[in-house]
């Protein structure tokens, strides 16, 4: 595991919103091809940490290095780094003024990363993999929740990211739609995508995660394999939390 390339290296990250200190010295390493699942109580700082990785949230202290680039350094061209980090949001955040395929091609065309033909061709391939090949021209308002999230994943993949960040990608979905989205993510993992996923889908985590990280009150309390975290967590608060979600 450790001979693999280090993709994300976060060290002693601090972040406050006003007086509310949300991240209190978080350190985490993620290597190439690794799938890391983050769990933890509401308000513990999972989203904030995830958003700090692509600098949607600026950090106060510490450093975050992605692909050997220090994203917390003001001199870094953050737009360049973000192009290599795909992000999937809980609320999809699809572009409401664009149809399905334009959602995917918008970024590469705006950034002149591809020719229109290349962008569309790649978008079509991605639509096939996420099962939306027949919805190319639909307005996004006509998609179901599950379809929206699969489109959001395709949109992120169009940019050929090195790393994918998922912030509770299935928690806004009706239960019957969750499976399809998780399947897409599972395929991604199989293809060796490096991923950090905030999710409380235990079954998925057990199957796919290389490591599970337990967040609590702005720090990482436990970081281990899914078997250990789910079956015999060392930390008391982790144990309480896991019991709670298993019995929920």
């Amino acid at each position: 595991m450790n001979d693999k390339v280090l993709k994300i290296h976060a060290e002693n990250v601090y972040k406050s919103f006003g007086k509310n200190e949300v991240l209190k010295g978080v350190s985490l390493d993620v290597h190439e091809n690794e799938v890391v699942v983050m769990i933890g109580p509401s308000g513990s700082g999972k989203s904030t940490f995830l958003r700090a990785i692509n600098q949607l949230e600026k950090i106060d202290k510490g450093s975050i290095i992605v692909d050997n680039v220090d994203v917390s350094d003001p001199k870094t061209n953050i737009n360049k780094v973000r192009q290599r980090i795909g992000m999937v949001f809980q609320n999809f955040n699809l572009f409401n003024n664009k149809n399905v395929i334009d959602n995917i091609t918008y970024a590469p065309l705006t950034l002149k990363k591809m020719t229109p033909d290349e962008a569309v061709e790649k978008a079509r391939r991605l639509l096939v993999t996420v099962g939306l090949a027949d919805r190319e021209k639909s307005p996004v308002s006509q998609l179901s929740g599950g379809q929206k999230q699969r489109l959001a994943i395709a949109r992120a993949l169009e940019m050929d990211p090195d790393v994918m960040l998922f912030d509770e990608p299935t928690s806004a979905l009706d239960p019957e739609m969750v499976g399809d989205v998780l399947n897409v993510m599972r395929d991604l993992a199989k293809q060796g995508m490096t991923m950090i996923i905030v999710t409380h889908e235990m079954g998925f985590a057990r199957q796919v995660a290389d490591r599970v990280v337990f967040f609590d009150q702005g720090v990482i309390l436990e970081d281990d394999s899914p078997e250990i975290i789910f079956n015999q967590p060392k930390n008391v608060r982790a144990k309480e939390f896991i019991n709670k979600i298993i019995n929920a």
Partner: protein
Amino acid sequence: MRKKYYFFITLLTIIVGLIIPFSNNTNIGVAADEKSHYTITTDSTYPPFDFQKENQKEYVGIDMDLLKEIAKIENFTYRVKPMSFNMAAQAVANGQADGIIAGMAITPEREQIYDVSTPYFKTGVVFAVAKNSKIKSYEDLKGKKVALKTGTAAANYALELQKKYDFNVTYFNDSNIMYNDVIEGNSAACFEDQPVMQYGIQTGLKLKIPEQKLGNAGGYGFFVKKGQNSQLLKKFNRGLKKLQNNGKYDQIVGRYLGSAKSSVTKEKKGNLPHYNIATDVTFPPFEIQAKNGKYTGIDMDILESISKSQGFTYTLKPMSFNSATQTVANGQNDGIISGLTVTDERRKVFDFSNSYFRSGFIWAVNKDAKINNIKDLKNQTVALKTGTGSADYAKSIQKKYGFKIKYFNDSNTMYNDVVVGNSVACFEDEPVMRYAIKNGINLTIPKQTPANTGEYAFAVQKGKNAALLKAFNIGLKELKESGKYDQIKAKYLGSKADTNKEVGNTKEDNSVWGLLSSNREMFLSGLGNTMLLTVFAILIASVWGLILGIMGVSENRFVRGVYSTIIYIFRGLPLLVLAFFIYIGLPNLTGVKISTFAAGLLTLVLNEGAYTGAFVKGGFDAVDPGQMEAARALGVPYNQAMRGIIMPQGLKIMIPSFINQFIITLKDTSIISAIGFVELTQTGQLLVARTQKGFAVYGIVALIYLIVITVLTWLSKFIEKRLGF
């Protein structure tokens, strides 16, 4: 959609119904002989050929006078039907009327439809330029802008010249706006029929005709339907010949265009000094606006006589009394004649002429109020007109008699405040008050009346325009010596023998329909100005507002600060203050004069633009922040994400606000009337001043606004749908 369509048609019908004149026919003629009575159509306004005399329904002009004389000689009677030129021509073509005389040029096309008399007037197209223009010939027009009036023969002729002389053209629907465009230097020249142009210049337009070369020379004729009314045509030709032989023809033409000799002197007028004279829009009997938009009254007649005798020309600038005094005080206008009382305070800023009128202050009360003695005013409210001598006088006795004061900007509103009983009395200059009461204002002058005499004089900015002041004094002296002065005074105030003679308000049809049809031109021109201001203000303010809104969501703090400051200032300033500041204050700072239209437009753009900017920013802010995050997470820079994702969604949100703002802009144009822009509201005020029919006139004005607003809303929604939102 269908429903809306019918709604619109209904509205159109209402508008057309409002605008088309009702039986506005003028009966002229005696002892109708059945076979020799004709209906003759004419253009409702085509001076000097066909137009209405000030304050009178009767049509005059070269055409009308010729027709009258010919009818007399040839012993027939007729009825004149004035209407739009196109309608007038069509009424004859389809047999509804017997003949048309309307400065109508003889052309081969027309000879196919009509039989035509011998030409009664030689005419052609000339071009006119601003007085100080160096343009001498067609060649000088190369690359310049030329103003044309849509659909006229002169315009067609200019278009023929266009290729050869390579100028650009711009179109106007109304001669006056076209002339003004040239006067203000926006266009280099305009093309017009020679007599019309010459008459315009003679009556004060600041234009000149650089070369008297007639283009497209031809003649005006009297037309009847082809193959019909040959008797009438014969009579016309015979009568015309007689008039030409006995010299009557020359007399008539000379009446309007000056004799051959005088038209030569008029040519020289280009070098005469020219002044801008400010006056009150309504201060009867000193300033009265007649139906045709021209000003009359004691002041006006004196000014006109003096300008003629002393050899200067002037442009009249009617505006509120306060604006009038201020624009002269700050040099924006050259002089003021406005029933202006000489006071010591005013002597500090003005140089006054000799007094041309002696006036006293008087008070008037509601007929039902039991007020006879000035002591009865204690604790009552008294209405005053801002900035007048009578107001100063009332204030000086306020303490002594213990009354309360309320101010108005215009006399009519002040009178009505007393009529309806909100105030018990008003103070006014004596001749003005008496004139108003004579013309139907329901007030009475108590026996015991305070007396304080004042002198009216013409004024210029202190230390400036000494030549003008001198000319005025000399002219005034001559007027008094020749007895003309007494004539003018008697015309408006009546001699003692006939004090009941009404001037300026002869029997008019004051019903709603009567008001509408007899003042159609005024309403249309007011509406036209309102629309012009609205359309430009909407377009420019929307663009400016969009720019502001985009500045408001900029990533740059400094740019956002500029946005906030602009919004703070221009949303905070009352529109009226802004208008006065721009029109009266700005020229003081910059020394550059600014037209009322430009000042009004700038005012509206700044004010409406600020509101627009605020809701544009609001619209952008209302877009779900997740949209921006998603774009940024993909590595799209802020500005590009703004343009590609946020703005399209924000614009959709703000469409109702835009429509709302358009309506507000339309309504706000009425405030621009305060600086003297004659739009719809101002037109209403002028009409009320003349007719005293506040309810009917403002009712009409209100209805027109509602109709326009309905159309505007409908149009906006239509465009919204068309844009696919």
